[in-house]
């Protein structure tokens, strides 16, 4: 009897424990699935068959988010240049954000910093990843868009060195706005380059990082899963971007909309999944004008591609699946390229307008400082984005050469001098440039070039847009009629 009673009690207990365990397992699985809302990037279940650990989510792009924050921080620091500091502290600090992998969690995030209006979860770069730096991922090709025949990483180092010795990071003698140059070029040379010229390029070929093997030994994600995630991280969109309007994504990047950013409603913005960065921010800035849909085109292609890889369930991707992936890659990288080209177009228009203001300041004798400040900022953005465009997989050398020739290595200064090279000491060599009129013409031609070579729709600051509108207003004569 006792034995029977014992057996009955034990069975009851075992049944209870079993039921609880089963329920827990089910709820765990359900929570992963429930967590995976259709149009949110992740979480996605583990499909890597060799993985024996406890992780439930195969999504991983902490290193890319760390690089987004290193980029943000570098931009902030570039404006802290001080020519009077003999210790070269500004330069050293910037180099730390370029080169250091923050294993010890000692590098503070400079932007975004937590505030009462926009509290953020992480404070140190290492909280996102302790194994990511910028310099290791920069474009290694020789950059013809910058003087000195330097590789991408050397260009950034050169700019950092100059920025550190320049008050506020803006060299008014040579016309270099380093915060803008460093930021925009890094966006291209690291973020765009890594995504479209590496992870979505070589690593999406059948033999590279196959889906039936872990990305690296012991990893809980497959080769293709992680390659895809890394590229998504470089894009810089919040995981729940598809649930936001372009204006909301833009405001999240500007730290103005906590409600839109805080998707999991924990009261803080997770810089890993809830923030909008760099390229995604620029995409949102064009999309909010209503003519384009870059942000959602790219983000939805990333989500669809990831779903397809996840659905392969850890098996090698078939040719059909790889072809579909290539379709998504095409959407992602062509839209991404267009976003950068839109920026080149926009800032060429800004520079054109600024030159008009400089001419006006010349005539009136007032407002030159303000006009020059805007001019150098916009030229830095123009040059940085133009260089970024050249960091992609598509080498449109003819377009790039024309663009580089027209904007030059430096802006045309009011005394008509312009940087034409770098000497052996790393100092700029200058020469007499063209007239302001000619330089304005170059800006027009850059806009024309961008419009003809890329599928631009936003066309912000179109220098001839007003003229086209006037012609439209007059209306073209299409009928045969006498007067």
């Amino acid at each position, binding site marked *: 009897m006792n034995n029977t009673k014992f057996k009955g009690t034990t069975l009851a207990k075992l049944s209870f424990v079993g039921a609880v365990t089963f329920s827990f397992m089910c709820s765990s699985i359900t929570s992963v699935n429930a967590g995976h809302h259709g149009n949110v990037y992740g979480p996605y279940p583990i499909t890597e068959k060799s993985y024996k650990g406890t992780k439930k989510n195969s999504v991983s792009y902490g290193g890319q988010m760390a690089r987004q924050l290193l980029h943000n921080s570098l931009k902030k620091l570039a404006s802290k240049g001080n020519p009077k500091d003999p210790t070269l502290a500004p330069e050293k600090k910037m180099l730390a954000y370029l080169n250091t992998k923050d294993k010890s969690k000692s590098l503070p995030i400079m932007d975004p910093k937590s505030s009462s209006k926009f509290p953020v979860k992480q404070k140190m770069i290492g909280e996102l990843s302790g194994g990511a730096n910028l310099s290791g991922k920069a474009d290694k090709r020789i950059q013809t868009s910058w003087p000195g025949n330097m590789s991408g990483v050397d260009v950034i180092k050169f700019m950092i060195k100059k920025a550190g010795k320049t008050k506020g990071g803006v060299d008014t003698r040579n016309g270099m706005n380093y915060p803008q140059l460093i930021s925009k070029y890094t966006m291209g040379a690291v973020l765009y380059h890594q995504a479209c010229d590496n992870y979505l390029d070589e690593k999406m070929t059948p033999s590279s990082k196959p889906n039936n093997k872990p990305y690296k030994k012991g990893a809980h994600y497959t080769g293709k899963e992680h390659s895809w995630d890394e590229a998504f991280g470089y894009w810089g969109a919040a995981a729940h971007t598809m649930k936001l309007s372009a204006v909301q994504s833009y405001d999240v990047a500007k730290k103005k909309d906590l409600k839109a950013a805080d998707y999991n409603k924990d009261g803080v913005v997770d810089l890993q999944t809830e923030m909008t960065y760099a390229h995604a921010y620029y995409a949102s800035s064009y999309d909010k004008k209503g003519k384009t849909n870059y942000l959602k085109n790219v983000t939805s292609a990333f989500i669809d591609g990831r779903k397809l890889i996840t659905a392969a369930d850890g098996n090698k991707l078939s040719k059909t699946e790889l072809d579909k992936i290539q379709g998504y890659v095409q959407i992602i990288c062509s839209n991404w390229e267009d976003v950068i080209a839109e920026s080149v177009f926009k800032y060429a228009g800004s520079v054109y307008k600024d030159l008009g203001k400089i001419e006006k300041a010349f005539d009136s004798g007032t407002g030159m400082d303000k006009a020059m400040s805007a001019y150098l900022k916009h030229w830095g953005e123009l040059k940085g984005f133009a260089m970024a465009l050249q960091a992609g997989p598509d080498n449109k050398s003819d377009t790039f050469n024309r663009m580089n020739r027209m904007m030059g290595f430096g802006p045309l200064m009011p005394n008509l001098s312009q940087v034409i090279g770098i000497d052996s000491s790393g100092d700029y060599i200058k020469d007499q440039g063209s007239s302001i*009129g000619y330089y304005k*013409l170059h800006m027009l031609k850059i806009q024309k070039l961008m419009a003809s070579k890329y599928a631009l729709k936003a066309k912000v600051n179109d220098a001839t847009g007003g003229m086209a509108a006037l012609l439209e207003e007059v*209306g073209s*004569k299409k009928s*045969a*009629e006498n*007067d």
Partner: protein
Amino acid sequence: MDILHQYIETLSENFFDPKKRVFLGYLLSAFVISFLWLTIVKKEKIKQTINKIFDKKVFMSKSSQADYILFLLNIIILMFLSPLLISQLAIAHIVFEYLHSQTILMPLNIETNNLWIIPTFFTLSYFILDDFTKYITHALMHKVPVLWEIHKTHHSARTLTPLTIFRTHPIEGVIFVIRSAFTQGIVISTFYYVYGGNITFVTILGANLFSFWFHLFGSNLRHSHIKLNYWNWLEKILISPAQHQIHHSIKKEHHNKNFGVALALWDTLFGSLHLSKSNEYIEFGISNKKHKYENNIIYLYISPFIGIYKIFLNYVSPHNINGKKQNLKFNKQTRY
């Protein structure tokens, strides 16, 4: 279906777009003006006036019927030809870019937003320059033999109605499209360069302010049988409907007169002005001798080619080679 849709759109645009001469509003204003002119100035009775304005002999004449058919057919032809022609935007870009490379004309760098005078000056300048290029083109259509052969189609009208403006050979339509593109492209790009991106037109219902007034005050009566004339002093500045009707007259003394569209200033300046006279009878056409096929649609389309071919023959004839030109005179208006 796209072509049909485009055709209907272009067709209806003529009557519903205030930028167009035969916009219904302008046709209505032309009726009101002619009604007031005939009843008040000419002291005619209302019934008589209505009958005169809507004279069946005019609107249903063979000449007018040919106008209507040409109107409908030319839309199709121009639909296919227009895309092949240089656009005003392309010209504007070329001029705008050129202006950056010269140093004579420089941007004024002034704020234009709060100055009504600059948009008004721009709108008026465009209107005047557009009118001037129309005068020049029109004069050339009469004085260059090959062009006259093309322009004859328009002058072959025996009755004038507002739709006679469409009695135009498609080649002439192409010439006008090119003239319009060059004028718009050059004028607008130059002003845009000098005054900056904020410059705007002053418009009413989307039409240029001055064009609007020109059309509202009876531009459609130019091609009509209502002989509305102005005071002589005014006819030296603005072309009256009666002056344009003189331009269509078969009388020799009226040939090559009044080329102007809105402004008579050009005719005054270049010696082609002819003032109207009250109650002067004017017969329209090219010659008093009626041509058998003058309202035949096919003939209207091919006759310019025949005329040009004859000119060509005259130049390459053996007589001409030997220095003896054939006795085919290219007087100011070769007749049928």
